[in-house]
């Protein structure tokens, strides 16, 4: 994060000075030029001319049931919860689609020499929707609230030492760390890390707390819908819509039907097939994000038969990646190369693309004494394309003499109970910085290490990479770490699937966002053209 570490206040157009400048070319594939200017995703879609003010946008998105739904941005984990949170509150920094960071409420983040203390400078002139100014006290309160053991907050700030964290005037917070950290920005850009007003306790339909975002809460009915109205005091440009109604429909088919029958102007989280069918609808547009989410299987490197590296390589050669992208994701995606994080800073794009080579896979299996390998793959209808990718993989692997038996398991607990617990499973993570992802999955002490990858030397190098304050050294270390995983790791990462959204043709200013990033389901720049 060089632009964060040099201490320049990087407002305005920033560019990652990484060797992965090719990323900027990639965004063009999405058909939407994304500026990394602060807070401006480029509008897309047919309505042209200047944005028209007014109107109520109705958006449908997957949510939770009425009994389980929460409004608190520090707890709301569902897609709908995320959409509401980002339109009402702000983070200090947020993810761009390529996982670089944009400054939001923070004007700069500066570490000391070893990353044990970070200085957060707040943007001046920001006010909450009730008119009170944003100060360092609000930030301290939000951190305390996320760290409060009595609350079921999911914000992950465990590395912050609150006892030694202090405000330094109205617009500066000095954060002390339990352990040094080189990339505090990625932590602050996390899903739950919103800044709420000092003193905010409960956030529900009776309190409707204030935020600094483009909209303010007007009403909330759990499990059903949230109505937002324009925040005229918003600090980052003018919001066009009068109101936004975020309607929750959990079922993909019903959600699409709501959009098709005119009950909504925007629909999120379509299936790939629905998006493909919608391409031919002249009254709607499909919005494809510039980057995809991992589509992958994982092998436990510590369990037979995958404890032999030749078997793992054979499995990776037995998947036809292009066929996966074309038939499972209907073309909405790119082929993967068995390592996580395409498009993210420090992603190793210099490794050769692994091909589909069943013949070579056969030879490797014979050499390993595992010819005619038989493995079981538990699968479930948990995410779009899961079952389809498992079925197709089983078909493709036959050419290498591998028999993959599919076993159906319950979808609602697949990712908490099955994945990583059996030798071969699906794995699905949204996009995070490599720092965060490998911290969660790659080391001997990671909580979600689903490949059983435990190598002290790799862990040590990873710790060095995380703490390296010099970006070139960091990149070098990260490239080596990924190369080792590409050679010997447990991921069969076949695709990066781009999750499409869709909108009616009278909706302007929609941003093409990767799920989980700041542009996704963000209506700050959205407007409605008069219906012709």
């Amino acid at each position, binding site marked *: 994060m060089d632009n964060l570490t040099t201490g320049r206040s990087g407002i305005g157009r920033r560019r990652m000075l990484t060797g992965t400048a090719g990323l900027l070319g990639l965004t063009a594939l999405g058909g939407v030029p994304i500026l990394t200017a602060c807070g401006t995703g480029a509008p897309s879609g047919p309505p042209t001319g200047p944005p028209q003010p007014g109107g109520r946008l109705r958006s449908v998105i997957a949510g939770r*049931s009425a009994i*389980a739904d929460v409004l608190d941005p520090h707890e709301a984990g569902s897609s709908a919860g995320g959409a509401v949170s980002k339109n009402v509150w702000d983070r200090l920094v947020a993810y761009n689609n390529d996982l670089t960071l944009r400054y939001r409420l923070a004007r700069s983040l500066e570490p000391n020499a070893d990353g044990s203390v970070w200085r957060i400078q707040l943007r001046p002139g920001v006010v909450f929707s009730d008119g009170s100014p944003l100060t360092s006290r609000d930030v301290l309160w939000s951190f305390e609230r996320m760290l409060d053991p009595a609350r079921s907050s999911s914000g992950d700030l465990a590395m912050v030492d609150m006892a030694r964290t202090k405000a330094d005037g109205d617009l500066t917070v000095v954060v002390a760390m339990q352990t040094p950290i080189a990339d505090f920005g990625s932590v602050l850009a996390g899903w739950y890390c919103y800044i709420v007003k000092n003193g905010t306790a409960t956030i529900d339909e009776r309190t409707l707390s204030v935020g600094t975002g483009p909209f303010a809460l007007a009403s909330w009915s759990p499990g059903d819908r949230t109505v937002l109205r324009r925040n005229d005091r918003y600090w980052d440009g003018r919001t066009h819509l009068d109101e936004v109604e975020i309607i929750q*429909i959990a*079922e993909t088919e019903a959600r699409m039907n709501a959009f*098709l029958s005119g009950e909504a102007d925007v629909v999120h989280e379509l299936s790939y097939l629905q998006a493909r069918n919608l391409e031919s609808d002249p009254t709607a547009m499909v919005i494809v994000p510039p980057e995809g989410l991992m589509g992958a299987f994982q092998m436990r490197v510590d369990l037979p038969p995958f404890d032999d590296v030749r078997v793992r390589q054979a499995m990776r050669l037995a998947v036809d990646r292009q066929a996966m992208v074309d038939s499972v994701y209907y073309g909405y995606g790119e082929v993967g190369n068995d390592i996580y994080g395409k498009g993210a800073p420090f992603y190793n794009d210099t490794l050769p693309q692994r091909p589909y080579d069943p013949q070579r896979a056969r030879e490797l299996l014979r050499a390993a004494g595992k010819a005619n390998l038989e493995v079981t793959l538990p699968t479930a209808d948990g995410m779009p394309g899961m079952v389809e990718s498992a079925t197709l993989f089983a078909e493709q692997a036959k050419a290498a003499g591998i028999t993959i038996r599919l076993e159906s398991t319950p979808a609602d*607990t697949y990712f908490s109970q099955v994945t990583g617990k059996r030798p071969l499973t699906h794995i699905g993570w949204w996009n995070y910085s490599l720092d965060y992802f490998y911290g969660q*999955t790659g080391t001997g002490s990671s909580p979600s290490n689903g490949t059983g990858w435990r190598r002290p030397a790799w862990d040590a190098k990873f710790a060095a990479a995380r703490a390296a304050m010099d970006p070139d050294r960091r990149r070098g270390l990260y490239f080596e770490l990924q190369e080792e995983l590409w050679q010997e790791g447990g991921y069969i990462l076949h695709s990066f699937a781009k999750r499409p959204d869709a909108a009616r043709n009278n909706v302007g200013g929609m941003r093409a966002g990767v799920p989980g990033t700041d542009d996704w389901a963000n209506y700050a720049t959205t407007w409605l053209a008069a219906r012709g």
Partner: protein
Amino acid sequence: MLRYFLRRAAAGAGVLIIVTVLVFGLFELLDSDAAVVILTRQGAGDPSPEQLAALRAELGLDRPAPIRFAEWVSGFLRGDLGKSLISGRPVDDVLFDRLANSAALAVLTIVLLIPLALGLGLLAGSRAGSRTDRVISVAALALEAVPSFVLGVLLVAVIALSLRLLPAVSLIPAGTSVWDRPQVLVLPVACLLLGLSPHPARMVRAQTAGVMASEYIRTARLNGVGGIRLILRHAAPNAVSASVHPLAGSVVGLVGGIAVVETLFSYPGVSKELLIAISARDYPFVQSAAVLLAAFGIGIHVLADMFALMVSPRARAVVGEGRW
């Protein structure tokens, strides 16, 4: 008669107790709990064991199952349905709202189902072998063979999406009643009727056809009783009593049918809520909703038994003689 009713009611209560224990037991066998659900987010990692332990302690999930069960039962008997484990919201805040929505669907369906099934069955059975009979019988058999969600998908595709006559999803903004937007009920009710009416209609038809071929109807005809009067006075009572149990079965089948329809149309009823609550491992809600739904099913069957007794002289005689 009263003794018989009380015995049936007591048996029903016994079944309900068994169901309650079963639901809780099955729930305990599930492979995760609310703590896991709360701490797991789509596209992210697993919670750490320490986090899980802390949250389980906070939610009281670390206590033995019998204690938790006893707590729920004592609360339920006092009318306190408990709080959601996920959000802390009181269960009755949501449950009764949702039950009212489901009841609207159920009542409307029953009100239309009974005359529809009886009418079609009598019409077909009174003219066994005629063209009317053949059309009704074949249609009923065909509909019975198609799962109701397939019918629902077809209805949505044709009526809502192609013809744009009715909403494709039955959204009811919170704070408004389903009766403010009655059009959202049309497709769900139609879907339920198509799924539930064929079976009782065919039973009524078979019974009516049997009665019409009997000696006593022929005698009535010879005595100059004819047409509508013959059917309503002489054939229908027998047919109706024979159809009480299939109809009661259909009404109980409503519970399952409504679950499908609510999911399909995203209708905010209790079944949809229950399905999501199960996947969220929110046992206070699941227990309360499941027990209330079971009570409804058992209650309908007891009532159907009583009604069948009232319309069937022979059964009354059997019960009266104390052979039950």
